[in-house]
């Protein structure tokens, strides 16, 4: 065994260890530990990615002295490594981009608690990505839920507490359903290890045994994870949680936490149950319908919203709808489109949150739509970043969002019965996206009247005042353009990763 193969395990342990470590450090040191740990984990995952690409096959890493069904194990393939690298990059940039806000909005003595949350969140995301055991996944889903809740409410005002409470209730309902689903599955297969479950599921499916419990288990797990990742009718917690929490929390929550659950769902579909059985069970059709409704309704809600942060939050509902629509197509191409959209949406949405915070900084901290008039001139880089993010969300060529929409459209061609609704939803949703994002872009580039400017005394933000945020925004823009212009190798990686994933 090569030393590189230990890296996924070291990553998980390192981020777990850095959580308690941050609790004894003061906030400055905790911040450095956090940044270092995320960077180190990102670098290690790059090495792992290179290794798996070179060997061309996934490998199993045994956690301890006992092999698979008795002990725990993690499984590493191209797809997992790609996801881990992207999650680290986006988390790092979100943390850098929101550092000023954290200093301003959090109680200084509680800032190191924030880093504990982020470190443990990272470890849970990594474990969700790499684990090959359903129960381990559940344990780390718990860590994920609690730390996300902490990230929301650490900026303490009424709205975040309400948002966190809602998030907690909905998310625990989702966790409960996931756990029940796992119990059902364990009851009929007798295994918790993903590959073993699939073996038994195929056996009992072919003889027609336990059809009902299998369907119920599949339904419970899908609905549970859909609730946790804010699929349309379950999105009530989302606007408050994303709209009022501190910037890095909003960016991390929207781009990573919900995506971790979707990744787990994809894993359950393809590795635990088997994608063909899922397709036969028609659960995907339900997800497809809710995804399409979400695409439209999320955008409609966003158009009606006058608070920019909440508008971006509602746009997440629409984008989650896209991902579930792709899954609901029930084809490999659909899953690849969804996976690409997980990445491209993560890169874009965190860019938008950071850029929006730059714009509100230059508008006396008001998040109201009309107060942002001319903010693009007061904070030039944030204006550019917001424009790039918006273009990417709408799906203009050369941006990340375009590629994912293209992939969705291509994927829907393969699914004959779903072609028409998928294409119509894509078109309508794109137009609606354009309505609210372009409206905002035009608003931030509309010069404000002189008398208003004089009355409000805005402080224009310069790059030198917010170096960290500028660096983060530039990196995010580059990432977006990279995903938009050089998408082919990434799509190929996802394709080869998905092949060795199941």
């Amino acid at each position, binding site marked *: *065994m090569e030393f590189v*193969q*230990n890296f996924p*395990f*070291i990553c998980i*342990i390192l981020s*777990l*260890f850095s*959580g*308690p*470590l941050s*609790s*004894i450090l003061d906030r400055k040191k905790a911040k450095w530990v956090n940044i270092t740990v995320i960077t180190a984990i990102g670098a290690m995952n790059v090495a792992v990615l290179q290794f798996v690409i070179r060997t061309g096959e996934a490998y199993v890493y*045994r*956690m*301890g*002295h*006992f092999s698979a*069904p*008795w*002990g*725990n194990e993690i499984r590493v393939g191209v797809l997992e490594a790609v996801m881990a690298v992207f999650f680290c990059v986006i988390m790092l940039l979100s943390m850098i981009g929101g550092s000023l806000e954290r200093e301003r909005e959090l*109680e*200084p*003595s*509680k800032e190191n*608690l924030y880093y*504990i*949350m982020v470190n*443990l969140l990272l*470890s*849970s995301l990594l*474990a969700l990505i790499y684990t090959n*055991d359903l*129960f*381990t996944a559940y*344990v780390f889903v*718990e*860590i994920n839920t*609690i*730390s996300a*809740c*902490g990230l929301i*409410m*650490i900026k303490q005002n009424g709205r975040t507490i309400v948002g966190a409470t809602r998030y907690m209730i909905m998310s625990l309902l989702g966790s409960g359903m996931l756990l029940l689903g796992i119990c*059902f599955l*364990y*009851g*009929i*297969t*007798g*295994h918790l290890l993903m590959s073993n479950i699939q073996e*038994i599921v195929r056996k009992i499916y072919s003889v027609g045994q*336990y*059809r*009902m*419990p299998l*369907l*119920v288990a599949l339904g*419970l797990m899908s609905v549970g994870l859909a609730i946790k990742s804010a699929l349309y009718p379950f999105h009530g917690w989302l606007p408050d949680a994303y709209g009022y929490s501190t910037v890095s929390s909003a960016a991390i929550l929207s781009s990573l936490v919900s995506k971790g659950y979707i990744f787990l769902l994809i894993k359950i579909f393809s590795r635990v149950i088997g994608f063909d059985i899922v397709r036969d069970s028609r659960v995907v059709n339900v997800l497809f319908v809710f995804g399409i409704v979400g695409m439209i309704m999320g955008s409609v809600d966003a158009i009606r919203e006058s608070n920019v942060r909440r508008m971006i939050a509602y746009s997440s509902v629409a984008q989650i709808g896209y991902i579930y629509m792709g899954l609901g197509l029930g084809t490999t191409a659909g899953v690849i489109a969804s996976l690409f959209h997980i990445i491209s949406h993560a890169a874009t949405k965190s860019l938008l949150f950071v850029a929006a915070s730059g714009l509100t900084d230059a508008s006396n901290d008001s998040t109201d739509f009309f107060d942002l008039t001319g903010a693009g001139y007061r904070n030039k880089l944030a204006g550019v970043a917001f424009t790039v993010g918006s273009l990417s969300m709408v799906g203009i060529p050369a941006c990340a969002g375009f590629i994912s929409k293209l992939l969705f459209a291509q994927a829907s061609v393969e699914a004959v019965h779903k072609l028409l609704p998928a294409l119509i939803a894509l078109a309508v949703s794109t137009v609606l996206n354009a309505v609210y994002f372009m409206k905002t872009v035009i608003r931030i580039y509309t010069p404000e009247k002189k008398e208003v400017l004089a009355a409000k005394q805005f402080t224009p933000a310069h790059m030198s005042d917010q170096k960290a945020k500028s660096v983060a925004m530039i990196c995010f823009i580059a990432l977006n353009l990279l995903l938009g212009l050089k998408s082919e190798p990434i799509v190929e990686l996802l394709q080869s990763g998905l092949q060795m994933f199941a």
Partner: protein
Amino acid sequence: MSRKKSEQEYEQTLSFRLRQWLDGTKDPFLDTVEMKPQRPYQETHESALQRKAEKERVIETVFDEEHNAELRIFKKIYRVFSVIFCISLVLVLLTGVSGLPPFGQASNPVNNEVPERYIESGLQETGAVNIVTGMILDYRAFDTLGESHVLFIATCTVLILLRIDKKKGRNSMESLQADDRSHEPKNDVILQTSARFLVPLIVIFGIYVILCGHLGPGGGFSGGAVIGAGLILYLNAFGFARTERFFTAKTYKWMSFGALACYALAKSYSFYTGANEIHSVIPLGTPGAILSSGLILLLNICVGIVVAGTMYTFYVMFRKGGY
């Protein structure tokens, strides 16, 4: 007077003493106690006004049903839908359960090679007489590692929500309202006397449960909970002034860090050696001896420390927002 006995005569009787004992006016150590009713809660004028304003705001602006048609419709639909949702969830679960294999049959799918090996060779492979401990702390130690961090992060979330920090000032409104130290020490003799007997017993029992987790029923989670309960009883009997001598925020931080770091390091060693097929130097010992079963004893102690700290911290945070 229609009394059969005089006052002095009545005070000599057993029934009078029983009455006194029940009322708590007579104490064997303190002699006759004058019972004072507790001071009723008195609200200051400002806080009363604030409370009223908040209530009105909630009723008039947040839940303004007259002008907010969306809310009105939502409230109506909400009731219907929640009932429908619950009923359908119950139905789905019942249909699912009815299709499951019957409980306790030997031919069930869960009775496969996995529990077989746990039961048959668990003792030789882990050295733990208690198979459950062997399973959670050796076979599936990675899950338990995550689980102990769940406890840790839960405490951190409670700290975020409830800890009152010195920066705001000990005398700020919030901290004064939350701080109930002014009622201390309570010097409740019954509580203190029984605590003096019980707390050492409870803590020793908790330590026993932790240390013998690999030999019999018990382990870190249950033993830690017992110790935490003992600490909470001690705190209630003797007040914060006494507990602060040995348990402060700093103690908790270092305790949980030490325990979790120890767990992570010990387990990383065994994960690493296990995955790379390196021989682990940790001996399993003779099953049944206290120093046996490899790392399990150490891990149990770590988990126990984390759980005890978590229990105590939860209580302290919910009571007054600080150690």
